[in-house]
Structures are given as C-alpha cells and as structure tokens.
C-alpha cells in the first residue's frame, strides 16, 4: 500500500497541546477516593494499635466490670448485639422485601396512597436515629408495654433500618429484566408465582447487599439505645427476647466516658470486635453477591 501524502487536510492528527488539566483531574479524583479510604485505614490502625493489649480471649469470654477494667470483657455486649442483629434480620428483612415487592410489582404508582407510601419511605430513611429512640421509648417500651427489653430494642432498630431495606430491595427487584417476568407470565404463571420463583431469586444479590448495609447500620447504632435507656452495665447474656440487654456500641460509649486509661484501651479493643463483626457481615454480603451472580 502506498502511503499518500496528505492533501487538503494539512493539519495532522497529532496532539495539539492538550492541557495537562486532564491528568490533574484524574489524579484529583483518585486522591479523593484514597483520602476517603485513608480515613478508614487510619481509624483501623488507630483502634487496633490502641486496643492491642486487650485483644485476647478474655475480651469475649468475660463480662464487663467497673472494678477491674484491665481484665473485663464485653461478652454481654457481643451477645446483646448479636441478639439485636438476629431479631432485626428476622423482622426487618422479610418486611422490607415484601414491602418492596408490593411497591415494585403490585402497586399502581398513579394512586395517591402508593405515592404517599413511597414518599414516606424516602422520608423515613432520612429521619435521625435519635428520633427513632423517642419512638421506641414512647410507643414500644411504654405504650405497647414491651419494657426495656431485647424486643423493644430490636423493633426500634428494625423500624430504623426498614427504609434502607425497602429502598435497596426495590432497586434489586427493578434490575431484574422484564423479559424474565414476561417469559414466566406467558407460560401461564400467576403473578405471585412469577415473583416468588423468578424475580426474587434473581434479585438475591442486590437484596443481600442492601440487607447487609441495613444490618451494618443496625450494628453500629447507639443513639436509639441511649434514648431507650438500655442498661450499660449488664453482666449476663440475654436469655430471650424479654430479657434486659446491652449492646456493644453503648458499652463502648460508656467506656469512653470513664476516666481510667484501662477503659479506653478496653473501648478500642471493643471497637475492634465491633468492626470485626461488621467486616464479617460485609464479606458474607460480597460472597453472596459473587456466588449468586456467578450462577446467574
């Protein structure tokens, strides 16, 4: 092939002094991401370093103590947190997913009451957690007379995270291609059969992600429990839903409030435990997401 000399278009295709702004922009973006994650890294390093002396088995084998912080543990807090998370998962996740199914698959979006439900859910997602504490105290603990029990705490937190579950489950359900629904309906399946057997299984990865985000939030909340006046020093594990309890974040808060240095070390160690539970849950989410996405 003969290489022809360029005729009319004498301007060649070479770079014509493109600004270095392009590179600066890219680097700025990347550093923003790194700064955000840098905070996380710094925080992790700090608490691990601070809590290091107490990161041993007594931490989860013993009960908290005001007398001997140096050998105290946070077992009751761990169990309390696990109880709350478990119950929240049992209550908030099914309710949230069902509500999402209603809104995505059944609700006629032109009806005022469905619009109201939607607006209400997005509003609730923004309501401060301390206000949920007021709700829990006034309505659940007192009015329903559930007292200051695991049940009250779990219901309060469930209501707190419910909007998150609903919103993310809706996203996941919406992401299931309509062709799957049509395919099922065209075979004579009913709507619920279609949802239960096609839509929900396909939406599992998205629902799982949203659920874990919601439970992560539930794990870390202290403010509603503060309002509920959950006991801070509890030297026993909850035995049931009507038992008194405490949760890790609240214990951490009370440790921070103590003046003795040992309590601060203990607080850092407890934070490491809390973060470990959090990371464990997140990895489960990622595992679920990847596993189910691979299959489908």
């Amino acid at each position, binding site marked *: 092939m003969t290489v022809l000399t360029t005729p009319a278009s004498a301007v060649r295709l070479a770079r014509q002094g493109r600004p270095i702004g392009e590179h600066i922009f890219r680097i700025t973006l990347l550093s923003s991401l790194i700064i955000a994650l840098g905070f996380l890294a710094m925080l992790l390093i700090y608490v691990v370093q601070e809590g290091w002396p107490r990161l041993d088995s007594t931490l989860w084998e013993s009960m908290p*103590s*005001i*007398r001997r912080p140096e050998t105290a543990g946070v077992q009751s807090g761990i169990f309390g947190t696990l109880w709350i998370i478990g119950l929240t998962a049992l209550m908030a996740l099914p309710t949230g997913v069902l509500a999402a199914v209603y809104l995505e698959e059944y609700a006629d979006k032109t009806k005022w009451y469905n619009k109201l439900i939607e607006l209400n859910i997005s509003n609730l997602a923004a309501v401060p957690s301390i206000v949920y504490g007021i709700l829990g105290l006034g309505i659940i603990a007192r009015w329903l007379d*559930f*007292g*200051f*029990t695991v*049940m009250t705490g779990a219901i309060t937190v469930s209501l707190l995270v419910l909007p998150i579950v609903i919103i993310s489950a809706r996203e996941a359900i919406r992401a299931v291609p309509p062709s799957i629904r049509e395919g099922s309906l065209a075979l004579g399946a009913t709507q619920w059969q279609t949802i239960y057997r096609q839509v929900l299984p396909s939406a599992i990865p998205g629902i799982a992600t949203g659920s874990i985000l919601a439970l992560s939030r539930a794990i870390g909340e202290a403010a509603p429990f503060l309002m509920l*006046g*959950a*006991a*801070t*020093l*509890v*030297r*026993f594990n909850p035995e049931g839903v*009507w*038992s*008194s*309890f*405490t949760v890790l974040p609240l214990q951490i808060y*009370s440790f*921070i*409030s*103590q*003046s*003795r240095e040992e309590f601060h070390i203990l607080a850092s160690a407890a934070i490491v435990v809390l973060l470990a539970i959090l990371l464990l849950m997140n990895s489960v989410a990622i595992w679920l997401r990847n596993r189910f996405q691979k299959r489908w």
Partner: protein
Amino acid sequence: GGGDSNTGGTDSASQGTETNAAALTGEVKADGSSTVAPLTQAASELFGEEQPQVKVPVGTSGTGGGFEKFCAGETDIQNASRAIKDEEKAACDAKGIKYSELTVATDALTVVVPKENTWATCLTTDQLKKMWEPAAEGKIKTWKDVDPKFPAEELKLYGPGTDSGTFDYFTDAINGEEGASRKDYSPSENDNDIVTGVSGAKGGLGYFGFTYFEENADKLTAVQIDSGNGCVAPSVETAQNGTYAPLSRPLFIYPSAASVKRPEVAAFLDFYVNNIDAIAKDAKYIPLNAEQTAKLKSDLQALKSQAG
C-alpha cells in the same frame, strides 16, 4: 415483661448477714444517675460472685429518666445523685410506689486546675461564685477579672452537663440556687473530657467528683476551698468529717418497697449495705464513716419492715 422472681428459699431475705444459703434467681433492675451507677455496678459485680443466678442490670438513664422508670414501677432500685424532687414524689405516689432514701457514699466535688496554674491553690466560695454565677456570663473572661491578684490568663471553665445531679449540687452550693449557672462553660457528661479540657488550657478550671481527681492527680491540681473557715483540701477524711464544705455531698439509692419483698432484691440490698465500705472503695468514692454506715443499715431495716 420483666423478670418475675422465683425463689430458691423464702427465708433468705430478712436475716441481714451473708445469706448465701440458697441460690436465688431473678433480676434486680437498677437505673438512674451515671454518677451513682459505679457503686451499684460494683455491688452487682461483687454480688454476682455470691449469687450468680441473680442478674443486676444497671442502666444510666440519668437521675430524672431513672426516677421516671422507678416511679412507673419499671425498676427496683433508683440511683440518684440528688434527692427526689417534689414532682417525682408525686409521680411515685400516684403509682403507689413506696421507697426509702439510702445514703450509700459521699462524694467531694473537687475543683481542679492544671499543673501549670501556680496562682490558684486556694479559692474562696465567693471567688467561685464570681466565676460561675449567671451574671458572670460574658463578663468574667480572665482570671484577673476574678481577682486582680491573678494573672490575665483566659478563664476556661469546664463542668458536668446541666442535666446532672453534680451540676445541680454545685450550683446550689456555690451560686445559692440549683441550676443557676453561667451558660458559656463547656459541659460534659464525661468527666474525662473535663480532665482533658482543664489540663489542656493554662487558664482552665473545672469540677467533678473526687475519684476522678485522684485518678488524674498527675495532670491536675485540686484547689483548696475556703468557705470562711480557712482553706480545706478535698480528701477522704475532710469529706467524711464534713470539714470539706460546702462541696461534699451524699449519693443515694432508692429501693422500692414493693421490690424489697422479692428475696433476690432483699438479698442484693443486704449485700450492698453489708459490704458498703468495699463497694465505695471499688467504685472510687469516699466511704461512709461509722455513724453513716449505721444509719444506712437501720434505714434498710426500716424499709424492710415497712415492706413487711
């Protein structure tokens, strides 16, 4: 749905001393002031070694929040850093909750300054009032404003939160009226913040319980208080014998008469009272003197007999 008590033995409660004959079960709910909580917490821990089946959760809803629950019959023991107020009495009466007031320890409110502060070794109650009274707000800005002899170092005030009994007591004792205080100080629920705040500012001053001072004696100096009878430093002795005035104060628990009928509550209270010295030390408060201890024991007996 509270933990209803079920008993191992009915005899255990009334005999005052060391009743570990039968294993008890049930739950003794305590709530209230976070200042008093360490005492009840320490009691709960020690009691747990004797009666491991009895659960004693200790909440820290504050004296006010605690009284609300207590007068609604939701808790058995109320920790209070101040005496019950009239409206709270009314609430308890309305629900038919009977109780008595037990003084379990003494606290000496300690006024602290940082180590760098060399001028304020002793302050009169008038000087304190001048710093803290509502009228001082925005006016008394430096130490020099308090007393011309002091340097013109900026005055930075730290104290417990306005909702605490400690605050109420201090304002009453110094400013003459409960709750009357300048607002532009740094309040904190967390005494540790006061330690940090005061030790970090040369012109800092704050107050809190004696315990916290002892733990931070390396960072802070305790100011001697002169209420007209010369300078007195806070200490166990001066607090117990009442010479550290007007800043030593009693700490209370309010057991409910109805709850005392339950053997596990009675056993816990017996334990509490009988070991009050060790408990106060463990909680880092100033223990009662012999006379006060005797009164505590008789008060508990009176409550029990009232409960029947």
